């Protein structure tokens, strides 16, 4: 579907986002704290006054299928990170997340102010539906269609599809997964994405400050060693020059943890 290399190489933000999408629900379910993702006007806001749920309900999905679909989508959206650079991608993510949070809060204020509205607008799905749909808006505006293809049912009718139709399908599936509430959240997300993309809402050009500094701290290899000389002594090193170039005389000291894990099985 795209010309990107498989895996999350050189897209650290997408990688961490995917980790979080999987790990947050997993840990919540293991510790039986899944309920912090629930949000509805009644009883959480009007009775208990738990306003922190506005934030937590945006953090984690509670169904496996939603986690799976959003992981697939985030994997596709890594094209956006390659296009934007990690810094810009992270910035737009944060901006979209905050706008979604704000939007949900405004809806909640509506609920508080107008008495009868809560049976229409009072329920919210658990998970970052809005954020993903907003990202999708940015994605479809920036990532061009690579090819179209046609499906003929008989001689007169045909369906023209493009390479992105799977993503449209998945977005639809995701939004429909929790019924009315998640469809509504998808619409909010789409609106926000559109507004931000057309510069009606400010923030598209905002950047995370101190990103270079942070990045160097998190991932020291990514910045300084941009230009790698692939090691020619080792013919096995094909794709990932990052790994093998670091091999000095003491490989044990510098192997990343995941590799150490795997090496244990390889023997």
């Amino acid at each position, binding site marked *: 579907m795209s010309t990107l290399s498989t895996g999350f190489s050189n897209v650290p933000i997408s990688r961490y986002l995917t980790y979080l999408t999987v790990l947050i629900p997993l840990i919540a379910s*293991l510790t039986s704290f899944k*309920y912090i993702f629930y949000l509805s006007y009644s*009883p959480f806001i009007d009775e208990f006054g738990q306003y922190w749920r506005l934030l937590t309900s945006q953090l984690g999905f509670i169904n496996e299928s939603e986690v799976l679909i959003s992981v697939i989508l985030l994997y596709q959206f890594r094209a956006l990170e390659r296009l934007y650079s990690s810094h810009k991608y992270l910035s737009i993510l944060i901006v979209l997340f905050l706008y979604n949070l704000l939007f949900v809060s405004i809806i909640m204020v509506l609920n508080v102010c107008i008495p009868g509205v809560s049976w229409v607008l009072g329920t919210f799905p658990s998970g970052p539906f809005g954020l993903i749909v907003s990202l999708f808006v940015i994605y479809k505006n920036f990532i061009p269609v690579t090819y179209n293809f046609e499906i003929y049912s008989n001689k007169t009718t045909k369906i023209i599809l493009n390479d992105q139709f799977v993503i449209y399908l998945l977005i639809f599936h995701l939004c429909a997964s929790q019924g009315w509430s998640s469809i509504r959240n998808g619409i909010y997300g789409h609106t926000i994405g559109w507004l931000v993309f057309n510069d009606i809402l400010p923030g598209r050009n905002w950047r995370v400050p101190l990103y270079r500094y942070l990045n160097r701290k998190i991932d020291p290899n990514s910045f300084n060693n941009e230009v790698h000389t692939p090691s020619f002594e080792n013919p096995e090193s094909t794709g990932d020059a990052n790994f093998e170039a670091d091999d000095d005389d003491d490989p*044990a000291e510098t192997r990343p943890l995941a590799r*150490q894990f795997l090496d*244990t*099985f390889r023997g």
Partner: protein
Amino acid sequence: MNRYNLIFLIIFFTFLLPGLPSTPIASDDQNQKLNLFKSHLHQSFELLQNSSFNHNYGNLTGFKLSYQDVLDGDLNQTYPLPGKDYNQYRNNQRYSILPDEITDLAQKVWDLDDVTTKESNYFTNITSKLKGGYILNENKSFEKLPLEIPGYLLDFKNDPIGSNYPEVPPNKIGNITHKYGSVNLDLSIVEKSNNEYFNSLDSQIKLIKMVIETSDELEYEKNSIETVGFYFVDSGNIITSTNSAKFFSIYGGLQHLTLNEKNFELTKNVTISYLQRELFGRTDRDSDDDGEIDVDLNFLSRNIDKSEEHCEYISFSHINKVNLTKNEISEIDQELRSPIGRPIDFNKIPNIQLQGFMYSPDCAIEIDFPSVIGMKHELQMFRLNKAVIAGIGLLLVQILLLVRQMSYSSTPSTIARISFYTIWIMSLVDGSLAMLYLIGSAIFNKLYSPLIVSAFLSFILASIFEIRFLISIYVSQYNERTLTLFTALQGRPTDEEQTQQTNPPPAQDESQVSGVIYTRFFFSLMIFTFLLLNSVMWPKTLRSNFEKIILFALNSYWLPQAYRNTIKGSHRSFKWWFIGGTTLVRLVPIFYIFVVKSNVFEHHYDLSFFMVIFCWLILQITLLIFQGIFGARFFLPKKWLPKTYDYHPILSESDLENGFGIGEGIRETNNGHVSVDCAICMEPVEVQFAKSNLDQVTGFGQKKQWMITPCHHVFHTDCLERHMRYKLQCPICRSALPPP
């Protein structure tokens, strides 16, 4: 994994997994008796449906004689008794099976506080485990009510000795003789019956099951009595009783003992709807109203066993009020059942407290529970969940530590220093933990996912990482000369021994070794786990001693390492962060169990034993640290020490003249310095030598700059040590090097 391992594993799991439920092989005779029993049950059920409070029990097994009848010397359990009035019932011993004193006592317990105010109410859901003490009431003596098993069941098991005994055998369950002891009450509200919900949250009367476990202080006499009964939510009163083939109390007998007509009607209706679901589930097929009861031979033989081996008991008790409104109580119950994050502080939910007594008609024993107290079951589960989650964290830390250590000790010379038994002990502990977690996940349904994750992690830790490590340690140390402490201390230089060695053992490859080690590991793991599980049932003193010995032994894991250091004369084995981290990870659970008083495992408080373990570990680590600082054999007297090869010998001029291998490339400099090229880094090495044997080389530190191999080659210390991590072989002449 080879074929033998697979077979072994299959056998292993065959033993572990539960088999099919065993049904006793039924003879025709037994089947006939089963049918009789079914119709007997059905008859009793009809009796219950038609009963009313003001009528006597009627023809109900176990309730045919009243206490007064027994006092009058009437021991013949027939129905109807001549001259007995069956159309009346009063709460006295003329009609009831309870003596008047017991009835009065029950009335007293139930009337403890009868006013329900708004501020304080009774808990609705009382599913919990309560602990307390019991007192055997020896002041009053009662007459034994003869309860006999129905005649047609007498020789059900073709064992005439077991079925008609004249007296209560001394080992009968529930025949409590110790005056004081502890009692555990396991209260549970019946929530489901035949997969249908029962006892809705707001119903005013609940069918409950109560398991009463008593034991004296030293646990010589342990009893476990299963009872079924009712909880009256608006008065906080509980009545339960046992059921068996000789005591059909749930079919109307127990209901009569609820002291008034209102209670009788309530309990009767609950019982009928329960029994209809549980046993008489098929009666709704209207045509076949007659016999289909969901009862099999297991049920029957269990009932017969119970009636032979147990004393029958009836218990009356009363729950104390808690300072919560009804609304708060129902909120708490809903939150505990399906948490959505209501603003409830779980720490402030009060405990359930209960007082009461139980009385056995056939053993004539009365036992008081002055105060039994405990936490709601769901809260207990939450606490357990927290403990298990913390355990998962510890397991993760241990896995990370081990993986890092393994990557550090991946070379033959580093792995040769590591003690096999240190890792062995750890893997034994982790493996048995995995087994216990696995069993736990089968028992605690609500904690299934955290427990199964823990089981998985500890299994990974034990059987993959640690066993893997063990295999590579074993392989690297297999060809080692069998060096015992004795030969090590005899003081022969390692070189000499090499010549004496006659038959080097055949080299084994990793797959062979892994088979051996996996087999051994799983075998010892199985034995150890069975021993642990078995020990739970031992008497208290034996059990606590066993626990202490096992814990002490399992916490000696650094001792084999210190021993190995001594044998090998090396001091760098594990990294210090691994030693510290592992000790901490393995000490935290022991600390929690022994020192935190309100721990979820209900283990008793024993600070002194924890201190023993703690000091023992500190001692071992100190030993390792001292070995690191002063050399591996610092605690042995000098003359015992074997001569391990010294890589930093003091060179004298005569050595130099003997052509100390430094022949070529030698550049003599002035005043006792020789400059040689290190073959590894090709930089010059400054070697110092003494002018004569008496002369001292100037500095100890300087001497450590270079190393001289037994084959007389000189290198920088850094260069050769780095090389020796990979190969114990001289880089120049390829002769073997002794480990540093």
